[in-house]
């Protein structure tokens, strides 16, 4: 089988390039990095505290809307936070804590929500008029347990039930205190719960906001590896493979091949496939590695990450087809690299501008004459040229959908989230993107074959 011989030859050529080992090294480091990153479920307390800020904001809004409580602000203080069943996971257990609202008036204190200084650090000699005292009293009256339970239930959206009882012991003159019990959460598994990543098997905490495992998986798989990582791999692969065809077409080398009983078209196509083999090996190595590492660490087996192997290879084929045509025309690796990079920048810019100015702008504003021609121009370029960025977005969409299906246990939530995805990425389709890009690849490779088949060497 001649094709196997040429693929084997391409593999040998690949393994001979030092940059391949640099790439493999980068991939190994990336996989090890992801594999050594652990995700510890955070306790309930850090989830609740930031949300209490929003709850308090709602309470203050209520205060300002009524004449008798206008001017009163509340600062929430949480104490004695306790997981009632420490043996269970945070999202499965009930929790209890004491919630105290420190009530202040506007004149006595700046807005405590935006300047949350502890009570003992408040300026001395706060001005407290009779009217202030009345307002604070009215606010205290407003903060009935049932009211507090309602606002807490709204704010702590993932908690199943909230029980609130007055806590007289903690309350002072300007304070209202409650014993709050959170009964269970709507989360059914670890996948939906908030985690914090820790690098190097927990040795180093990453200062990032709390994220669910699904969000972390999407961030690492799609953005860090799929976006940045594969761009690096794509760029290095373009540089490395750009020399494959010029080397084959070099004087003294091509004569040896053309004297063999193989058609020129088959020779070029097989060599082209050999270049793609290089990309498949690289992306398969890193994406399978990341898929395994993330899967073992998070329990989320995001199969869409594996889809990235053929997708990224297809994207690479767009650039490699141009590289092949330039190589046949010029026999120069440098010119092939330059041409390919120019195309990459062009497609990247076209993809982004089409997304930002056309897909978003088209609906936002009525089309004026000048805009109309811009739309026509962009649409024409977008239709004819390969849709490199569209494929990127469609890949992101596939990963997000996979994660939604795995993590959202409620069917209605799942359907809603998928509908949101459809809305966000609805302008792009696999069919259109693959047909436009595939046609471009076929055209470039066809022209390269035509030139190669008819040229005298």
């Amino acid at each position, binding site marked *: 089988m001649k094709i196997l*011989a040429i693929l084997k*030859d391409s593999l040998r*050529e690949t393994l001979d390039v030092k940059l391949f080992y640099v790439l493999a090294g980068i991939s190994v480091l990336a996989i090890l990095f992801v594999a050594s990153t652990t995700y510890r479920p955070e306790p309930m307390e850090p989830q609740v505290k930031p949300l209490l800020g929003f709850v308090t904001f709602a309470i203050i809004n209520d205060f300002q809307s009524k004449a008798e409580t206008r001017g009163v602000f509340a600062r929430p203080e949480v104490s004695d936070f306790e997981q009632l069943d420490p043996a269970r996971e945070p999202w499965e257990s009930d929790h209890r804590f004491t919630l105290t609202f420190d009530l202040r008036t506007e004149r006595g204190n700046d807005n405590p929500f935006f300047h949350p200084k502890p009570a003992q650090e408040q300026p001395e000699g706060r001005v407290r008029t009779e009217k202030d005292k009345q307002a604070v009293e009215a606010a205290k009256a407003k903060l009935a347990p049932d009211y507090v339970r309602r606002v807490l239930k709204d704010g702590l959206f993932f908690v199943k039930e909230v029980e609130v009882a007055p806590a007289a012991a903690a309350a002072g003159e300007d304070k209202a205190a409650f014993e709050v019990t959170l009964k269970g959460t709507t989360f059914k598994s670890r996948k939906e719960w908030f985690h914090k990543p820790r690098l190097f098997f927990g040795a180093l905490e990453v200062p990032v906001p709390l994220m669910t495992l699904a969000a972390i998986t999407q961030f690492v798989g799609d953005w860090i590896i799929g976006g940045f990582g594969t761009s690096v791999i794509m760029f290095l692969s373009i540089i490395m493979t750009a020399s494959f065809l010029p080397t084959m077409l070099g004087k003294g080398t091509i004569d040896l091949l053309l*004297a063999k*009983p*193989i058609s020129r078209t088959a020779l070029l196509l097989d060599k082209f496939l050999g270049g793609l083999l290089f990309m498949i090996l690289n992306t398969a190595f890193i994406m399978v590695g990341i898929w395994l590492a993330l899967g073992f660490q998070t329990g989320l087996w995001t199969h869409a990450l594996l889809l990235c192997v053929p997708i990224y290879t297809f994207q690479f084929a767009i650039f490699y087809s141009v590289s092949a045509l330039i190589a046949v025309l010029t026999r120069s690796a440098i010119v092939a690299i330059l041409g390919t990079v120019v195309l990459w920048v062009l497609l990247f810019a076209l993809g982004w501008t089409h997304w930002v100015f056309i897909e978003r702008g088209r609906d936002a504003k009525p089309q004026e004459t000048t805009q109309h021609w811009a739309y026509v121009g962009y649409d024409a370029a977008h239709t004819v040229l390969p849709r490199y960025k569209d494929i990127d977005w469609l890949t992101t969409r596939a990963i997000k959908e996979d994660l939604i299906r795995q993590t959202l246990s409620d069917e209605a939530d799942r359907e809603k989230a998928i509908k949101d995805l459809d809305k966000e990425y609805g302008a792009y389709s696999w069919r259109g993107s693959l047909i436009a890009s595939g046609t471009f690849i076929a055209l470039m490779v066809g022209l390269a074959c035509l030139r190669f088949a008819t040229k005298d060497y």
Partner: protein
Amino acid sequence: MPVIETKNLVKQYGKIEALKGVSLGVEKGQIFGLLGQNGAGKTTMVKILLGITKPSFGNALMLGEPAGTAAVRKRVGYLPEDHRFPDYHTAASLLDFYGSLLEVPSAGKKKRAAEVLEMVGLKGRMDYKVRTYSKGMKQRLGIAQALFHDPEVIFLDEPTDGVDPLGRREIRDLLGQLKDEGKTIFLNSHLLGEVELICDRVAILDKGEVIRQGTMAELTKQRGLYVVGLAPGQEFPRADVAALGYDLTSDGEKWEVGLSDGQTIDPIVELLRDRGLKLRHLAEKRQTLEDLFIQTVEAAEPGVDHRPRRRRR
């Protein structure tokens, strides 16, 4: 029926005619040498025969079929001039790769690789990367790949280029052995001495035209010129020989005797015997291939080797 036959082969590159109606024939089992200056069209000729370059006009047949088809290429071995092997291969892996392209059965490839590499003296280095080879070793490997699939016709473009004298002799012996096996060998070379030693027939190509062709004997024979030498200390009877009507030219201690039409060397031999002189050297003088080549090319275009100017765009 000739193994290689071309009729009025023309190759044009724009306004430049690299071949101007070349007609050649090479019989089975011959070693055929194609001579010519740089740019004479030798490599173009070979590339047309192998289908690497397409002729503008004319016909070329090889092994009874149109030259350059895949079926014909399968039966042909080729060592190009200035060939460059992918240096990530070892000799063994390179032969395996080319063998696959030549449709050599997998089962016999390894054994055959060892055989041909032994033939060219590279068996001990078959697992070393090509990049570690000297120029001479690469040349030997080139010959090995040309012979790998046991072809019927072998094209060798400067096969001894970069090879040391001992290696050249080995290659000459190898070509002789291949000839004995019935292979047809088409040789392009600048080393006229070697061509003279091994070729049965040669053609001289000049600016795309065949200006001489024939067997080595036909081309190098110089009729009517003999070299005569006597035993040391004996004086050649110059005046008496001249009196017989021969032209004489001193060639060191020997004499070159020129014969006119109808004359033979026999009267001189009898004269020397009658005088009691001892004949130590008597040979019909042949011109070397180099003499012939220079003479032929100079005759075709005195002053030589100017190249057509590149057309301005």
